[in-house]
């Protein structure tokens, strides 16, 4: 087998996606893909920033038919987009009409047109074709590319579907709160439906009321692909939703207590996926059953000296697990946390070294450091930055950071200090930073 079809088992007039204005059939989808594939410029790569999940899929499929690689930036920060476009010089940007990206050639998707005849053979994509490159933030400040072949994407979707016992006959619809440009979003909300012949909801609901409405718009078995953050919001708000078939959560560890509450509230099982951009989805668990992860079929963890590597038939070389884990004799494993330099905020992973570097690049910043305080009661714990920049204001530095980094990493708060509490070796002990931040916070509240 050297290639597999673009989409799984759909009837030509079966629904493939729900758009805001109604259903899109498989026939409509193939027409849309073929029309777009005929009209995109002849380039090796495309930045697909389309916000509708269905339109993103049309762009992704059209790019594959033209042999183009879809670039998935880790954030929409203009500097990140320009850096990637700089590295892939002949790329173009597929984007919404009202959101062109400055400095990059933008192509807009036309609204869907006439229906073409159902092809005698659904287009096939070679297994070894690089379909996408997912970028992660490296410690040097340069985005790190992770190549995803069509073979890897379809294999992960099949293994995930098998583990979750999804079948085509289910007529299930996937509603997702995660972005499709994110690796988990691509796998669980785009690849999972099209490989198994499921329906995808094109929206990306954010607020609890949006999630409730999106679930109410679709029929049949409903699968909610989401994050602990959205689950917490829905449970706190107490939204009433139609019966769910399954909840799939990823991007951050889901606390046991929240999983229990969510299972009670939504009357369904809550499963979690463990993965990372370099390898894709790796393992699954039903959260209330315990903290052990069960690798997906075909995934094996192997130790290479002090680090654990993921081995599969679809990854060309073993991939290092960025977290600290312990693996049992049966291959199941427990995750103990991120590596030293890595942090994760609401599913966005970044190296602190990368953030510090970007902070120090700002004109007028003499010294500065980002750090993550201990977790509090909030939905999300934010970073703090201590910065030495005489003559600069907090607003000026925030402004400069906003152009360089993903908004989730913007420091809350950013503290201007006369100097950093470096020790004799020039290092910054975490305790000293926490103390400094605390003193600053007190000072501010006295002023206020």
């Amino acid at each position: 087998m050297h290639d597999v079809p673009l989409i799984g088992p759909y009837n030509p007039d079966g629904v493939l996606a729900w758009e805001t204005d109604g259903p899109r059939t498989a026939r409509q989808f193939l027409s849309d893909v073929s029309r777009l594939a005929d009209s995109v410029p002849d380039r090796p790569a495309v930045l697909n920033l389309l916000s509708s999940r269905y339109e993103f899929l049309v762009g992704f499929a059209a790019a594959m038919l033209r042999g183009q690689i879809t670039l998935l930036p880790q954030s929409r920060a203009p500097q990140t987009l320009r850096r990637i476009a700089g590295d892939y010089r002949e790329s173009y940007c597929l984007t919404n009409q009202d959101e062109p990206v400055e400095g990059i050639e933008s192509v807009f998707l036309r609204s869907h047109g006439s229906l073409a005849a159902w092809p005698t053979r659904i287009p096939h994509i070679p297994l070894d074709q690089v379909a996408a490159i997912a970028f992660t933030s490296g410690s040097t400040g340069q985005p790190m590319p992770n190549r995803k072949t069509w073979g890897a994407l379809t294999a992960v979707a099949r293994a995930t579907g098998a583990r979750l016992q999804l079948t085509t006959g289910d007529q299930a619809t996937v509603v997702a709160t995660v972005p499709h440009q994110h690796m988990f979003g691509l796998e669980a909300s785009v690849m999972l439906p099209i490989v198994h012949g499921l329906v995808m909801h094109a929206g990306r609901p954010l607020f609890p009321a949006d999630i409730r409405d999106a679930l109410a718009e679709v029929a049949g078995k409903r699968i909610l692909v989401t994050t602990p953050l959205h689950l917490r919001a829905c449970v706190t708000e107490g939204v009433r939703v139609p019966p769910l078939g399954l909840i799939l959560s990823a991007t951050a560890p889901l606390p046991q207590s929240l999983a229990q509450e969510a299972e009670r509230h939504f009357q369904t099982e809550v499963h979690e996926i463990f993965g990372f951009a370099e390898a894709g989805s790796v393992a699954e668990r039903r959260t209330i059953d315990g903290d052990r992860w069960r690798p997906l079929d075909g995934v094996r963890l192997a130790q290479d000296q002090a680090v654990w590597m993921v081995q599969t038939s679809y990854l060309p070389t073993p991939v290092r697990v960025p977290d600290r884990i312990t693996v049992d004799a049966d291959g199941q494993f427990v995750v103990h946390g991120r590596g030293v330099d890595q942090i994760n905020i609401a599913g966005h992973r970044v190296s602190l070294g990368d953030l510090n570097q970007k902070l120090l690049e700002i004109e007028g910043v003499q010294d500065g450091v980002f750090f993550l305080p201990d977790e509090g009661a909030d939905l999300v714990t934010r970073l703090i930055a201590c910065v030495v920049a005489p003559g600069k204001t907090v607003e000026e530095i925030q402004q400069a950071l906003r152009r360089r980094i993903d908004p989730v990493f913007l420091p809350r708060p950013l503290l201007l200090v006369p100097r950093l509490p470096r020790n004799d070796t020039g290092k910054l002990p975490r305790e000293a930073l926490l103390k400094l931040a605390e003193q600053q916070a007190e000072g501010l509240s006295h002023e206020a």
Partner: protein
Amino acid sequence: MTESFASSLERDLASLIVQTLKLKVDPATINPTQTLFGDGLGLDSIDALELSLAISQTYGYQLKSSDPEIKAIFSSLRALSNAIEKNRTK
């Protein structure tokens, strides 16, 4: 020159935003017509989610991003305050 609050709801909402999002600003200094997201207070979608929970719990108004007015509602403290005034149930 900072514009002043037009109502006590605006003042309360400024405090709710600062408290909910742990912003290191004095609520009284928030300009009611300044943008909340992007360049203004620099809020993002996680803030929007946290804020929507606080607004729902305090005023009984559930925000929806499918609302065609959502961008306008979140454009400033004043716009948000007006939307709450119109839709509040508590």
